[in-house]
């Protein structure tokens, strides 16, 4: 919403200057977005008087002028303009002034050997136009030394405010002035609207045609003004429209536009000669189309409301008029329309047609119904003033609705919501200045809401009106009472898990990324997603079209982007949501990580102390197990199910991580080469993904105490075993069997060696196990140790078919 200061002052009396106005606008909630103040910007440019102009001694096209600038002795200024001449009043800029067009700060200079103490300016240099033929020529009576801008009509700053959707009353300058008057920086001017006495009946009848349903318009009125001369509008009107960037068209159209901005009252004018028969307000019919004033044709449907005559649709109600009945210089009889529309219907129509207009903007937010007829009178008066003619009586259909809302308002409500103790008088005053009618004695008030405030519905709205006008700076900061207990956990289980996993993975050298929640359809497809219910209806781009089924595709793509930028060894993770479906329970908290190149947990890249090996499935396994450990699941509790990982992993170099046969926590491994190829990514690349909410709730325990330590004073002893076993047998089975051989004595089993090659039969592998035995009550005898060792060998053999290597 834009208006000039002088326009505002038409509705607001008093001396408030630009700064007061803009500060107050923002303070009451009409946020100033922009102020264009040419007079302020150009205040340093003053009127000068050329006392004498002589040829420059060293240049044909330059003149040396003696210029009176209103203070001190005349200054010598070198000027190249052909129209610089003795006696001319000019625009003078002193050294130090910044020239608007170039942004250059003017310095004292010497031009071809002659000192020049300033500059005489052209329109273009001041950003006021393209005229570069010469310097600006000011009227002879221009006062020397004074700023020149006001003399040429540049002293009317233009203010642009942001009007929130709840304040349609401030989509007219008058409403803005009312808020400012309420804030006591002036008085609202409210001249009575003259009622024009119609000289004859309106020849065009109007009616609603909505069949059995309620009309989409509560009220529709027209009036004919016959015998008008429609040409350019008066100078003041054109200037106002131009000041806010609205192009003047002709007097009749300008009047409707002016009242739209001035009073928030959209109007429409039909050229009566082009209207055939009655004006009927009805639903559009499916298949009807309509050429609007913006030159575009719109296909209408039967949810839209139109104004039609015998020839068809002539106006899209409340949104835009039609080209066929528009007014131009040939118009002699004009029908002026003022109506009320259903805001939701206007909004839906405008959205469906993607048609924005000043009328739509106001009708969909809610115009003042009580001003429908006064608006028509005001328009009639302006049309007659500008174009002459004779007004008919008003023809109308429907009735202006009257909203009789009176709110019972206890003064204490201000303290309850705003924490401010105000007296009844302090509450009443701002409300009355805003046009509310307030009655009632003492602490209990009755507040009648004015017709132009559809946003005000109850007590909270009244509190807002009071505090925004008296000033939110009066709100006093008051400590929130401390809670009665400090011990409650503030985070949910999953929140704590996410936090722990984040810090754990970062501690293993991975950097945390936050990637989009949406991925491309091919990415979603490659990771088990791309369900139709998870494809956005209006994606921002094809790359970001589907809700992600997994964190991996984005991380893998990011790893490749980093490699393309020269960071080939990248270890990266994300903890975030993934989507199995569109229900809340389908959203899961996942943690995933990828490692590329040589970015192993012990360090990335080449190093003098060790060979840089490519990442492998065990790096991903280590990350996954560390993350599970961080949420309370030890590696011993988790099953590694080889071959059970999703098919975007390498089938032989991956596994699912499970608790029991059904509860899948996630998976790790090398990515499938085909998956990488589909994503356009090169390896080596490994990764893992875990579902943090899949892990079971920890069992509630009565105490936080740990089990007794039970450390023995007796020396533990370690026995090494070398087993030969088929290479397809998982090593974990041997470890488990050795552990199970004597659960009391065996405290640790370490796999310290794995060998296949010469000396080991084809298809078999040699595994070295170190078994630690912890005596509990007494030192073990050789015979006892031997017995345990035999049991270990037997158990391992039974479980895995392994034999002791001899």
């Amino acid at each position, binding site marked *: 919403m834009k208006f000039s200061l002088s326009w505002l002052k038409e509705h607001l009396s008093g001396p408030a200057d630009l700064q007061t106005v803009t500060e107050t606008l923002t*303070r009451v*909630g009409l*946020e100033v977005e922009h102020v264009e103040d040419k007079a302020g910007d150009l205040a340093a440019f003053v009127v000068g008087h050329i006392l004498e102009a002589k040829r420059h001694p060293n240049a044909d096209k330059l003149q040396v002028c003696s210029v009176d600038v209103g203070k001190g002795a005349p200054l010598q200024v070198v000027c190249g303009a052909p129209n610089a001449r003795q006696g001319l009043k000019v625009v003078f800029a002193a050294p130090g002034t910044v020239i608007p067009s170039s942004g250059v700060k003017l310095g004292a200079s010497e031009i071809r050997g002659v000192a020049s103490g300033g500059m005489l300016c052209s329109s273009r240099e001041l950003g006021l136009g393209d005229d570069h033929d010469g310097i600006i020529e000011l009227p002879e009576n221009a006062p020397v030394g004074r700023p020149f801008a006001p003399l040429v009509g540049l002293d009317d700053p233009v203010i642009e405010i942001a009007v*929130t*959707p709840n304040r349609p009353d401030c989509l007219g300058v008058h409403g803005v002035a009312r808020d400012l008057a309420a804030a006591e920086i002036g008085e609202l001017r409210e001249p009575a609207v003259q009622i024009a006495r119609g000289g004859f009946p309106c020849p065009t009848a109007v009616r609603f045609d909505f069949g059995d349903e309620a009309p989409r318009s509560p009220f529709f009125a027209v009036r004919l003004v016959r015998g008008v001369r429609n040409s350019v509008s008066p100078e003041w009107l054109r200037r106002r429209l131009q000041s806010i960037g609205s192009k003047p068209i002709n007097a009749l159209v300008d009047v409707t536009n002016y009242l739209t901005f001035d009073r928030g009252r959209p109007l429409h004018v039909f050229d009566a000669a082009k209207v055939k028969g009655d004006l009927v307000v009805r639903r559009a019919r499916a298949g009807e189309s309509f050429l609007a004033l913006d030159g575009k044709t719109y296909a209408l449907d039967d949810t839209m409301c139109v104004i039609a005559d015998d020839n068809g649709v002539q106006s899209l109600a409340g949104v835009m008029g039609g080209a066929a009945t528009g007014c131009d210089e040939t118009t002699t009889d004009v029908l002026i329309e003022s109506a009320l529309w259903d805001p939701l219907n206007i909004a839906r129509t405008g959205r469906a047609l993607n048609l924005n207009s000043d009328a739509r903007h106001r009708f969909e937010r809610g115009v003042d119904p009580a001003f429908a007829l006064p608006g028509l009178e005001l328009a009639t008066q302006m049309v007659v003033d500008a174009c002459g003619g004779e007004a008919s009586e008003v023809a109308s259909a429907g009735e202006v609705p009257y909203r009789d809302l009176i709110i019972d308002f206890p003064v204490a409500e201000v*303290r309850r*919501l*705003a*924490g401010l103790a105000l007296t009844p008088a302090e509450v009443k005053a701002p409300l009355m200045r805003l046009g509310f009618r307030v009655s009632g004695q003492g602490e209990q008030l009755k507040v009648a809401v004015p017709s132009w405030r559809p946003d005000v519905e109850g007590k*909270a*709205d009244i509190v*807002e009106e009071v*505090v925004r006008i008296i000033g*939110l*700076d009066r*709100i*006093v*900061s*008051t*400590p*929130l009472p*401390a*809670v009665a207990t400090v011990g409650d956990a*503030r*985070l*949910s289980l999953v*929140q704590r898990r996410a*936090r722990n996993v984040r810090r754990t993975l*970062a*501690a293993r050298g*991975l*950097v*945390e*990324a*936050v*990637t*989009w*929640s*949406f991925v491309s359809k091919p990415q979603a497809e490659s990771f088990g997603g791309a369900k*139709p*219910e998870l*494809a*956005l*209806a209006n*994606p*921002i781009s094809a790359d*970001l079209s589907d*809700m992600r089924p997994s964190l991996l595709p984005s991380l893998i793509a*990011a790893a490749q982007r980093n490699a393309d930028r020269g*960071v080939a060894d*990248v*270890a*990266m993770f994300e903890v975030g949501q993934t*989507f199995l479906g569109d229900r*809340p329970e389908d*959203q899961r908290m996942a943690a995933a990580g990828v490692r590329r190149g040589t970015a192993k*947990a*012990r*360090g990335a890249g080449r190093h*003098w102390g060790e060979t840089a090996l490519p990442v492998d499935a065990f790096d991903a396994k280590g990350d996954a197990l560390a993350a599970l450990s961080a949420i309370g699941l030890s590696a011993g509790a988790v099953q590694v199910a080889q071959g059970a990982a999703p098919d975007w992993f390498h089938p032989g170099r991956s596994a699912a991580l499970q608790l029991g046969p059904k509860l899948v926590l996630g998976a790790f491994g090398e990515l499938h080469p085909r998956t990488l190829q589909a994503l356009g990514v090169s390896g080596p690349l490994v990764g893992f993904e875990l579902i943090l909410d899949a892990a079971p709730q920890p069992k509630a325990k009565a105490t936080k105490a740990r089990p007794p330590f039970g450390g023995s004073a007796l020396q533990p002893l370690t026995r090494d075993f070398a087993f030969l076993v088929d290479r397809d047998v998982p090593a974990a089975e041997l470890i488990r069997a050795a552990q199970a051989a004597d659960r009391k004595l065996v405290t640790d089993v370490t796999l310290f060696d794995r060998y296949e090659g010469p000396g080991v039969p084809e298809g078999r592998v040699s595994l070295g196990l170190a078994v630690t035995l912890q005596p509990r009550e007494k030192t073990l005898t050789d015979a006892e140790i031997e017995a345990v060792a035999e049991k270990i060998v037997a158990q391992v053999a039974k479980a895995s078919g392994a034999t002791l290597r001899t």
Partner: protein
Amino acid sequence: MTDLDSLSTLEADVLAAVSAAADEAALEAVRVSALGKKGSVSEKLKTLGGMTPDERKTFGPALNALRDRVAAALSERKTVLADAALDARLAAERLDVSLPVRESGLETGRIHPVSQVTDELIAIFSAMGFSVAEGPDIETDDLNFTKLNFPVGHPAREMHDTFFLPAKENGERLLLRTHTSPVQIRAMQAKEPPIRVICPGRTYRFDMDQTHTPMFHQVEGLVIDRDANLGQLKWVLEEFLKTFFEVPSVELRFRPSFFPFTEPSMEVDVRCRKLPNEIRIGEGDDWLEILGCGMVHPNVLRNCGLDPDVWTGFAWGIGIDRIAMLKYGMPDLRDLFGADARWLSHYGFRPLDFPTLAGGLSQ
């Protein structure tokens, strides 16, 4: 014949040989030649047996003292030679300790600024008694708009550029939440007041330029109580911003504004100094719009089954990404979601830099 002079000569000779011994082997030879069975000092000692008692009185102590001095000199020399030998070995064993070590994960791993700042927010608000609530990213129109007092079809809905999921057969259309406010509704539906929650999370709007991304992070706060009011809201925001930006004080300016779910509604500016590459909160003469807030709208309370004449509440919302950028000087929002390892290493946080109020929010 033994006399005291010859003993002096002998001692001088032996001690000279001890000093001259260049290594432990030479020193051992000196020991044998002096104190060995047939050593020069031992031979002298043997002569004591053939002496008269008077002679013995003189030569006994002299010879024993001579032997002790030689033994002490040998021992001392042995230590010197052993030290020298160790020094020589150590000198040869020198490592180039300037060789770089492998950096541990604790050095290279990083926490994303959004996670770090979320943890900072949790530290601050948990101290004020707030719990952390969350809700789904895919929401219903009812929870994202209608329950929050956005009337169906109202232009206020157009303040949010919404991502929609496909319409279902029954006409229902789910959407990506445009703010974390639906979590407030869920919190009010789930728990009897009094309520103090913050709701951090991902939010989505159809927008992409230097200051907008289609996905961003918000945190909202909600207090419902019998006497929650604007004064308390102001205090909470002051404490929050002051603590978060780690400055001694902040000055806030409230401006009336409009959000469908609050009444009165306000936007909040914070006093700051705008420098070319930095904005300093808590000083200066500029104002920076930083958050939106207000008293929970009576319709919203009613929609959650709360009587607005009994309960009042206030709520606020702020961009996590935005305050992270402000505090830590990140210039471009889009970089936060670019997963550039170099950027993450530069702006990320060490895993053990866990924000706490007791230990300081940031290092």
